[in-house]
């Protein structure tokens, strides 16, 4: 138990040392995949709790006897959707991170990228804690806390993942950072590129 706690905390406090241990022990994908699934589940539960349950609390009396059932059903669908979405994102980002790490001269297989990104999701514990505090505040403050939590968690995730990629692929921290950030930029550009033809059509 203490080992697990040391791993979880070590990823935040001393990520390089912790990743060294992880790779030295030749751990597989099971543990990071489990951490990712657990973090995505609690992250989506906190989000649903802050946004949807409050809103459903208002809407449910308007739906007669179906309000409670509908709320629970929509909540489950949302959590499942976010967990599945998170897993898909993990796979895509893992592949892209591996490609960029290789481009920057890194040595290692794609499994290492998945391991690093999976463990790095521990960073979202800040989002979960702030989101939980948000439950006891009003709606607008809770949305603010979620936003701040998300920003801090994403920054921490980038730092932990960059250190991990640097350690896994034997590249500098700067190259590790680039290997983590560039996939995010590529992914965020895809929706923009998809709307570009429509924007041209509108201008015409």
């Amino acid at each position: 138990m203490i080992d697990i706690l040391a791993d979880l905390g070590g990823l935040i406090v001393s990520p390089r040392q912790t990743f060294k241990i992880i790779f030295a022990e030749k751990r597989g994908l099971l543990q990071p995949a489990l951490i990712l699934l657990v973090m995505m589940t609690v992250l989506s539960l906190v989000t649903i709790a802050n946004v949807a349950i409050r809103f459903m609390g208002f809407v449910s009396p308007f739906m007669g006897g179906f309000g409670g059932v509908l709320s629970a059903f929509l909540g489950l669908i949302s959590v499942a959707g976010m967990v599945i979405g998170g897993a898909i994102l993990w796979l895509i980002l893992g592949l892209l991170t591996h490609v960029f790490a290789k481009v920057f001269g890194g040595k290692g297989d794609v499994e290492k990228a998945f391991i690093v990104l999976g463990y790095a999701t521990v960073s979202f514990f800040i989002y979960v804690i702030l989101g939980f505090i948000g439950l006891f505040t009003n709606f607008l403050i809770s949305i603010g806390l979620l936003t701040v939590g998300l920003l801090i968690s994403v920054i921490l995730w980038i730092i932990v993942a960059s250190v991990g990629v640097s350690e896994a692929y034997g590249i500098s921290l700067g190259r590790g950072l680039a290997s983590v950030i560039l996939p995010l930029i590529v992914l965020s550009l895809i929706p923009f590129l998809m709307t570009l033809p429509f924007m041209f059509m509108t201008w015409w």
Partner: protein
Amino acid sequence: MVLRKEEVVGIIVLASMILGLIAPIVAYSVAKPAEVPEAMFQFPFTGKLKYVTSETYSVSEEFEVVLDVSGGGAEILESEKENEVKVEIYEYPAFFPFFRKPAVKEYNIEFADNVLHVTISGYVAKVYVPPKFVKRISSVVSGGLSVKIDAGNVETCDFKVTSGGVELDLSNLRNSTISINISGGGFSGKLSYGDYVGEAKIIIYISGGGGRMDIENMGAKVKVDAAISGGGGTVEVNGVTVLSLGGASVTKTYTDEGFDEAFKKLLLSIDVSGGGFQIGIRK
């Protein structure tokens, strides 16, 4: 046993996982059902207003307030001076000015034949009235409206809202008629009644929208007529749900025992077409 800093942080991470798992249960127990509409429909122009102009009138007899608001907001408040009506006009900041086309902005204030007529478009009006002289309030609003006065002398209030919200805080009401007609928007109300003999009426018609109202009318006998066509809602009397409506087309009535013979009556009529409501009555 002394824990290392990694283990301490690990405990925090583990605790966050547990908190995340119980978050939905906690949310159900701590969330107030109506906080979302209150946050959405409360009078939105309370800060950073830019003063434009004001008009002051002296009154000595009962008068009517007529508000015509399109794309802006109005607030009716109690005047500090008991014979003075004051109308202040403000500009409000646009949230995303670079996205907005120039709006039509105009205002007009008239006080003639005991009728105060305020027309605004793209402005915020703060109307300060002496409560003892206000007999009628009528408004056609496309935007936001907030009314917070002692309504002891008010006979009729007629609030018509298309695309917007109304926030009411009326105290000391008597056997008056309050009419709220919402077409695409929301309302949030707190009505408090004083002593009277006769029948007070609240008529709510909602077509696409919703809201909540808390009514306090001690000692009154209550009758509620509610009709729903696509939507739903609940009526509580002293914390007990007496009417719960939902579905395609439903009509229900609740009547207190002894309503017909009572000296103090409250008649509530609700007609909802595509929307919802929550009404709480304390008596």
